[in-house]
């Protein structure tokens, strides 16, 4: 059976009916298996499904491959906690204002975790190819670079049969699971995203399974009043978990900005000794808290309110 035939039969077996699929955060994490390729929605410090990553770290998943357009401290956390063996992305560091991530450097330079680098558009077209049910898409970047050379064998060059121009073909990237955090979703999985969409329209179409975490669960009637805001359809979604501030300390557009003071704390804790620093950080904010609310309590009300105040500014003139 070809890859496409397998894709069609897997998809045909999925329960695509309009049914409720609300689960707890812990139950959502339990849907992800050791060794899975997990695509993380959002980008950089935005709409990161951080609460679900928290639950995955606590559940002690192993040998996961993560992919994302760009990773920030989420990348640091999945390598430092040992749940990831590989990260496929275009850019990996907490953020330019904090310098180059010491955690990424430590784990990648020591060979403990692999950082497979693609260009940003290549990541996008790989997800899009998978979303389109195609094995690859052509791209006009990557050529002549060491980024392409280092991916030896992963890409192909071709001469266009119509124009004779040289093109690079990037292979479809089909995650086992996509995890996406959104502002609103109904119990069936109709997900609405405000503001920046990143790759979160292609991701759920590309993945074999989709888990949504949402700031709020709203009714299906509410969805039906503004269906133009629904960014991916219910039938691609397997589970929905309601997690207010589920992207903290990253941002969720229109609701809260990155928790800058907390991001400073993470950078500071991991700067001198990334191994010990991240162990201490994970202990305090991942292993000890027994619920996501307790994580938020530990991050603190001041940071949360500052982030929320900034988040709402987006609507100012």
């Amino acid at each position, binding site marked *: 059976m070809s890859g496409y035939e397998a894709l069609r039969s897997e998809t045909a077996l999925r329960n695509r009916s309009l049914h409720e699929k609300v689960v707890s955060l812990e139950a959502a994490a339990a849907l992800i298996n050791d060794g899975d390729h997990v695509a993380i929605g959002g980008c950089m410090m*935005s709409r990161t499904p951080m609460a679900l990553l928290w639950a995955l770290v606590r559940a002690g998943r192993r040998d996961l491959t993560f992919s994302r357009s760009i990773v920030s401290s989420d990348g640091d956390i999945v390598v430092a906690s040992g749940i990831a063996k590989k990260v496929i992305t275009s850019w*990996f560091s907490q953020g330019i204002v904090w310098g180059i991530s010491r955690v990424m*450097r430590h784990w990648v330079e020591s060979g403990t975790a692999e950082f497979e*680098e693609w260009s940003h558009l290549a990541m996008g077209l790989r997800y899009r190819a998978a979303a389109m049910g195609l094995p690859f898409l052509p791209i006009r970047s990557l050529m002549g670079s060491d980024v392409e050379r*280092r991916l030896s064998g992963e890409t192909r060059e071709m001469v266009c049969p119509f124009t004779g121009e040289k093109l690079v073909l990037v292979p479809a990237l089909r995650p086992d699971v996509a995890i996406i955090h959104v502002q609103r979703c109904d119990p069936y999985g109709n997900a609405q995203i405000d503001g*920046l969409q990143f*790759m979160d329209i292609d991701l759920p179409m590309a993945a074999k399974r989709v888990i949504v975490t949402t700031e709020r669960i709203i009714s299906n009637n509410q969805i039906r009043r503004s269906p133009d805001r629904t960014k991916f359809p219910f039938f691609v979604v397997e589970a929905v978990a309601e997690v207010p501030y589920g992207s903290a300390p990253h941002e969720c557009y229109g609701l809260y*900005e990155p928790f800058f003071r907390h991001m400073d704390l993470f950078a500071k804790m991991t700067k001198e000794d990334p191994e010990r620093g991240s162990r201490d950080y994970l202990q305090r904010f991942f292993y000890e808290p027994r619920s996501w609310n307790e994580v938020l309590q530990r991050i603190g009300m001041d940071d949360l309110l500052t982030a929320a105040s900034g988040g709402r500014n987006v609507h100012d003139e």
Partner: protein
Amino acid sequence: MNEVGSATRSWTTSELLTIMASRALHDGQIVFAGVGVPLLAATLAQRLHAPGLTILFEGGVIGPFIVPGDLPPSTNEQRCTRRANMVCPITDVLMLLQRGFVDVGFLGGAEIDRYGNINTSFIGDPDHPKTRLPGSGGGNDIASLTHVIVAMKHEKRRFVERVQFVTSPGYLEGGASRHEAGLLAGGPEVIITDLAELGFDPVTKRMRIEALHPGVSVEDVEANTGFDLDLADPLRVTAPPTDRELEMLRELDPDRLYIA
């Protein structure tokens, strides 16, 4: 503080770099700006001489006006979207480069070579790197698909004969090699540093000095460059930062997030 060119004014290297970079952008252009100095310089240009400059950000933003003092920490947060005309998926905003709607891409870089190739991936052997850098992001796509302005500090360790890793292609091995590799459009146009403006010979594609910043000599530039530079004829001297440029820049970045 660097006080070249003015007895009465002083500015930091980052301020000089940002101001000089902002002058390279023109009203009516569409610029794809990376985070840091590019973002700040594009915003500065918009506030001074190029109010009709359309900025694109990688996070999927078309035509924003950044709020002074509320600079985004990357090009992927809501601060990038202030007063934007449109937000769209990342893949689609990057596709505008491939489609040819973008006049100029604006990048920073860790390391650059004589043909304008940029490395933001590895220091040392990629298999056993001394330092793993954050990587391409959209840099490879921007450099592959459009004309590029690069803003970076002028240091010998950053201006090297040959980059250790081509993350974002310039003119590759010079001459027609970029075109032959399949990159049919774009290429680096100007490299702006805290010492000079550099461009490329139209035929050989070797880097050359186009203009010196006030108070800087050719020897100063050469001493901070790891390869021989050609000289444009005539060699220009840039005008020093004006009070208006400095005031506006400091208003945009009062916390000195990018102009430290």
